[in-house]
C-alpha cells in the first residue's frame, strides 16, 4: 500500500507537485495520465525517492520515505521501477542484468538467482535471450527484460513510467501483455501511460494530473466517458 499525503515537490522555484493526496491499495492498478510536464514522472520518482520530496509524506508499506531514519534502499527493494528508456546495464548479459540486484542486494546465492532469473525470462517470453547483450535486443525485448529485472527483487509494488512510449508501435503490444499478466497476478501497479486502451482494460482507477495537481480520479469507464472537469475533457479529446 502507498499513502501519499500533502506531497509537494519543487525544483528550485518551480513547484512541480502541489499538494498531492492519494492512497493506492494493495493489488490495485492505478493509471496516471496527463499532459506533458504535468508532474507524472516526478510523482512516480518521489515514491521511490529518485527525487527527494520538498514537503509532505509518502508511506510505502507503512514506511515514510521522506523520513531520514528510513532505509531507502530497503524501501526500494519493495518498489520496482520500469523506465521509458529501459536503462538496462549494457555491459552485462540479459541474465546478469536480472541477477545483479538479487545477488548484491538480497545476497541470494548464484544458483537461486539464476533459477529465478531464468524463470522470469520465461515469464516475459525471452528465455532464449538469457546470454544475449541488451544491444542485440529490440526495444520491446529490452523493456520486457527491464520488467523481469525489476521483478527479480520480488517487489510488492511496480512503478511504470511510460513503459511503451519509446517503442515502435508494433512492439507496444508485447510489453502491455506482460503488464496485463502482472496485473492479473495481483501486483500493485502505478502506470504512467498514454495507452488509453490499457487504462480502460486493466486499470482499476485512472488519475488525471495537470499542473502538478490531481484534477480528477475515477474508474476508467467513468473518467473516460463522463469526465467532470473541463481540463480532463479537453485532454481526453486530444488523446482519445
Amino acid at each position, binding site marked *: 500500500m502507498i499513502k501519499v499525503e500533502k506531497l509537494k515537490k519543487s525544483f528550485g522555484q518551480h513547484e512541480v507537485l502541489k499538494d498531492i493526496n492519494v492512497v493506492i491499495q494493495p493489488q490495485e492498478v492505478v493509471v496516471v495520465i496527463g499532459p506533458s510536464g504535468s508532474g507524472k514522472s516526478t510523482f512516480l520518482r518521489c515514491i*521511490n525517492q*529518485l527525487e527527494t520530496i520538498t514537503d509532505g509524506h509518502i508511506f510505502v508499506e507503512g514506511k515514510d520515505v521522506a523520513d531520514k531514519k528510513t532505509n531507502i*534502499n*530497503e524501501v*526500494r*527493494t519493495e*518498489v*520496482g*521501477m520500469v*523506465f521509458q*528508456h529501459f*536503462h*538496462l*546495464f*549494457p*555491459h552485462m548479459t540479459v541474465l546478469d542484468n536480472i541477477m*545483479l*540486484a538479487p545477488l*548484491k*542486494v538480497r545476497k541470494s546465492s548464484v544458483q537461486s538467482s539464476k533459477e529465478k532469473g531464468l524463470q522470469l525470462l520465461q515469464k516475459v517470453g525471452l528465455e532464449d535471450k538469457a546470454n544475449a547483450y541488451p544491444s542485440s535486443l529490440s526495444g520491446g525485448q529490452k523493456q520486457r527484460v*527491464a520488467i523481469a*529485472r*525489476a521483478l527479480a*527483487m520480488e517487489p510488492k509494488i511496480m512503478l511504470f513510467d511510460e513503459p511503451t512510449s519509446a517503442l515502435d508501435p508494433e512492439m507496444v503490444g508485447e510489453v502491455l501483455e506482460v503488464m496485463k499478466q502482472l496485473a492479473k497476478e495481483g501486483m500493485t501497479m502505478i502506470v504512467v501511460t498514454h495507452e488509453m486502451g490499457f487504462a480502460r482494460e486493466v486499470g482499476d482507477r485512472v488519475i488525471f494530473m495537470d499542473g502538478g495537481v490531481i484534477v480528477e480520479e475515477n474508474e476508467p469507464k467513468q473518467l473516460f466517458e463522463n469526465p467532470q472537469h473541463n481540463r480532463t475533457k479537453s485532454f481526453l479529446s486530444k488523446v482519445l
Partner: protein
Amino acid sequence: MDFRFDIIVEYAPLFLKGTLLTIGLSLVGTVIGTILGLFIGLGNMMKNKWLAFPFKVYITFFRGTPLLVQILIIHFGVVTFFVDGTNAILAGIMALSLNAAAYISEIFRAGIQSIDKGQMEAARSLGMNHVQAMRYVILPQAFKRMIPPLGNEFIVLLKDSSLISIVAAPELMYYVGLAKGQYYRVWEPYLTAAVIYLVLTVTLTYFLNRLERRLTTE
C-alpha cells in the same frame, strides 16, 4: 659534420637500461595514479562542497604547478621524511604518481559523467546503495571509455618522466646526460634520446588507436 655513432654504440647498454627504467617509472606512475585518481575523482565529485574541497585543492595544485617543481619538492622535501637522505627513484615514482593522479581523477570524472544518468537511477531503484551502483554498474562502463585517455596519460608520463633526470634518477635522460658530459657532444646523445622517445610514443599511439577503434565498434 661528423656523427659519432661510436658514442651511441658505447652507451647503448646504458641507454637501454635507462629506457627500461623510463618505461617502468611511467607504468608504475600510471597504475598508482589510476588507483589514487579513482579516489580523488570520486572525492572531487562529492556533493558536499566541504568534503570535496581538499580534492579540488589537490587537483588544482598538481595541474597548476610544473612537474619539475613537484619533483624537486618531493625529492628534497617529502621523501626525506620517509628515508634517510634522498632517493631519486622513490621521488620519481611519487612525483609521477601524484601528478598523474590529478589528471587521471579528471579522466575518471569525465568517464563517470559520460554514463547516462538512467544507469545510476536504474541501479538505485533496484535497492543498490551508491557504492554498489558505482562498483557494478557505473565504473565498469566508465572504465571502458577511460582506456584511451588513460593510454594517453601513459604516453604523457613517458615523456615527462625525463624530468626526473634532474634529481639523477637513472632513467634514459640521465644516461644521455652522462654521454653528453663525457664527450662534450650534443647531437649524438640528444638525437638518440629523441628517437627512442619517438619510437616508444609512436608505437604506443598506434596500438592505442587500434584499441580505441575496437572499443568503439563493440
